[in-house]
């Protein structure tokens, strides 16, 4: 194995309450195995002890070292310095604190809001009394274990929340990590508070925009957005639906109907079915004022063999 060393420049966005914000540059030699947590550790122990960052396990299971590296939300430990050099074609690497979270010091951010989101979904199993008392034993199918374990592997690193546009704009949205956690228990056959979980999760699930940022940045590949999709499928079990959930449900139904009819998603029809005629007209006036009505009124031709599509949908 070659361990050829290469000098890199690391530019870190620093912050302290006393001094405010500034960029600082460090130079050091790394090889193909050097993790970014090691880069930070070496800067701190060999060059600048004042640098503040969090890191613990260095193997991507503790979730401490989330930060922005060359603008990407990443775990520092799961990022090799020379991979960044190769990917961006330059030997300069920038490091900044995660977005969205308030900065406390340098790369250390305040996680309070994130933890509160996680606790909102009651992130623990509520097993039956018999099992808790040791009178009964859970059985779990291997395939159920596999499915749930995929979503249980959230390490609370916060990267998905830092990258999520809906979290920033919608205070009612729980955020991707909390949804992954919530779904993991919602879908667990050993849990006993299904209805309560529906109330917590369904409304929020319809507030996601499916932008897939969480899917892209998750260092454990747990696909928070997938859990949101799966959670939406439980809407039919919710007894008292919120307006957001109702609209969401109607929208989903309208899309299915449109595809069944024409084989295509007819935006105008879907819009009317989702929001009702009155809202649609109001919105159309608004669209007209902005010169965008022509897009809404594009008429779609039926696809040729729509029967076949219906057959697929029916399956």
């Amino acid at each position, binding site marked *: 194995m070659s361990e050829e060393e290469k000098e890199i420049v690391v530019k870190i966005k620093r912050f302290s309450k006393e001094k405010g914000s500034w960029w600082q540059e460090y130079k050091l030699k790394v090889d193909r195995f050097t993790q970014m947590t090691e880069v930070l550790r070496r800067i701190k122990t060999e060059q600048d*002890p004042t640098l503040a960052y969090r890191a*613990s396990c260095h193997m991507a299971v503790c979730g401490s070292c989330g930060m922005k590296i060359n603008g990407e939300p990443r775990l520092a430990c799961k990022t090799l310095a020379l991979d960044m050099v190769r990917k961006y074609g330059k030997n300069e690497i920038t490091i900044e604190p995660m977005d969205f979270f308030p900065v406390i010091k340098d790369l250390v951010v305040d996680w309070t809001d994130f933890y509160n989101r996680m606790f909102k979904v009651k992130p623990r199993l509520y097993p039956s009394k018999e099992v808790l008392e040791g009178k009964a034993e859970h059985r779990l199918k291997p395939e159920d274990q596999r499915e749930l374990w995929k979503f249980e592997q959230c390490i609370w690193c916060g990267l998905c929340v830092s990258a999520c546009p809906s979290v920033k704009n919608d205070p009612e949205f729980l955020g991707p990590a909390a949804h992954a956690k919530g779904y993991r228990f919602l879908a667990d056959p050993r849990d006993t508070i299904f209805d309560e979980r529906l109330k917590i999760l369904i409304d929020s699930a319809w507030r996601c925009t499916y932008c897939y940022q969480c899917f892209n940045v998750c260092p454990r590949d747990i696909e928070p957005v997938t859990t949101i999709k799966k959670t939406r499928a439980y809407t039919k079990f919710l007894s008292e639906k919120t307006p957001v959930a109702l609209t969401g449900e109607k929208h989903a139904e309208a899309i299915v109907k449109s595809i069944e009819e024409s084989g295509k998603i007819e935006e105008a029809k879907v819009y009317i079915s989702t929001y009702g005629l009155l809202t649609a007209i109001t919105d159309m006036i608004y669209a007209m004022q902005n010169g965008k009505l022509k897009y809404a009124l594009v008429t779609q031709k039926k696809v040729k063999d729509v029967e076949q599509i219906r057959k697929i949908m029916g399956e």
Partner: protein
Amino acid sequence: MEKLSYDAIVIGGGLAGLMAAHEIAVSGYKVAVISKVFPTRSHSSSAEGGIAAYIEGNSDPNDNPDYMTYDTIKGGDFLVDQDAAELLSQKSGEIVRIMESWGTLFNRQPDGRVAVRYFGGQTYPRTRFVGDKTGMALLHTLFQRVSGLDIDFYNEWFALDLIRDDKRVVGVVAMEMKSMTPVFFKARAIVMATGGMGMLYAHSTNAYINTGDGYAMALRAGAALKDPEFVQFHPTALYPSDILISEAARGEGAILINNKGERFMARYAPRKLDLAPRDITSRAIITEIREGRGFPGGYVGLDLRHLGEDYIKERLALAYEAAKNFAGVDATQEPIPVRPAQHYYMGGIDVDITGQNPDLIGLFAAGEAACVSVHGANRLGSNSLLETLVFGRETGRAVAKFLSEHKEEDSNSLDKEAEKVVDDAYKFVKSESGVHFGEILNKLRNVMWEKVGIFRDEDGMKDALSQIIELRKMTSSMYVLDKSTTYNTEFFNALELRNMLDLAIVIARTALERKESRGAHYRTDYPERDDKNWLKHTIAYLKGETVEITYKPVRITRWKPEPRVY
């Protein structure tokens, strides 16, 4: 200084601490957990392969708790207190059942029951697992469970020192890292669940946070460490980043090969082969490398290829990922480069099987911070997760019992002592110029690795001891450049170094004293186990620069020491 009062304080938010806190809280006592990281960031999360358990009706039909006890005792080279090992085996099934009932997603058998696999040193397979992220799965389950209880969490608070009167521990001073505000936490009982100390070694699989804080706090408060010379080196850390490649790999059938392609363990452990205990396997690997049969750079190969891609990716996902991400090796195509690295500390705060320390009334310890003497001279794989939960629970229960028997006593005003703890911390970093913590730290880690590591001898350890004393002197000219009063990690790193130096001197001194080889303590100048003179526990106190050593007998119930052959 602000004061807060609890019945009990647990320091450390890993598995042992959380389990102890759980038991104290459900007994109706007011308990707080102080941790320098958010609990799920604790090092318990890094435990990979599994948790050993004899489960009645779900174990090998020939197995029973006695075999498990025997394996643990033999694995520990007979330095194990046998009553502790018996308790560990007997409670193992119950602990796994509890964690399962709280939601841990153990891998399953086709009939829906918890699955099992082999680990090193086991007569029958007993390791229960969640892929190879068992620690993470258990830690999240337990943290989520206790987060629903009435427990106050002080996360990212750094414990400075214990406060004691002439015979009792009465509290701890801790500092909120964000605001740097110290608080005197008063309590009738303190549980040290501060984990291990891997950062003392240049090569370690441990998290950066494992700086031995609890050992040093206990030593400074006048409590003893038991068997501090016993440090475990894991045979298969990924080269060169020292990320752990779980023993589960060998449990599932992976083999170690040298540069000639030989399965060299056949020469060192003809029967157990690659599943020999960690101390034996680590020494075998280093011997292969030293005798020129390693690969350039100094490593051997861990070959998984015959297991097949699907099996590797499901059962050994973390090993596969780590090799791919951190060494650029596809484990389905080529052997993983591995070498030994510090992994676990068998030594710890001296406690009995209820977690109670005999030196200070009200002081308890659990998990890696403690030495219940369940691992003896070498811990078996899958026994650490089990220990954290079994003895975390025993300790929590003992604390509840202790609290019911020890009502509030008039403690003298110890506010001055609390102030002094904070003064001492700042004094430790008072210089305006000189060296910063990193220089001393890096030297310490190298000397421990080279001279108090896998192979030890008198000259090396004497040299190490004098170097450690030198490094301790150097701290008088240590300075902290960062004057910030918000989340000043340089300040806390310096205090971690203080803890590491207090522990290092005790390890080096006691290792020099034990003139035999037993388990992980291997001396080239005394290569044999010597039961006549050394079948006893080391008990070490730190008085200034002096390490005072006494001994305690090993508790032997049913298993007489015998040669340890695998």
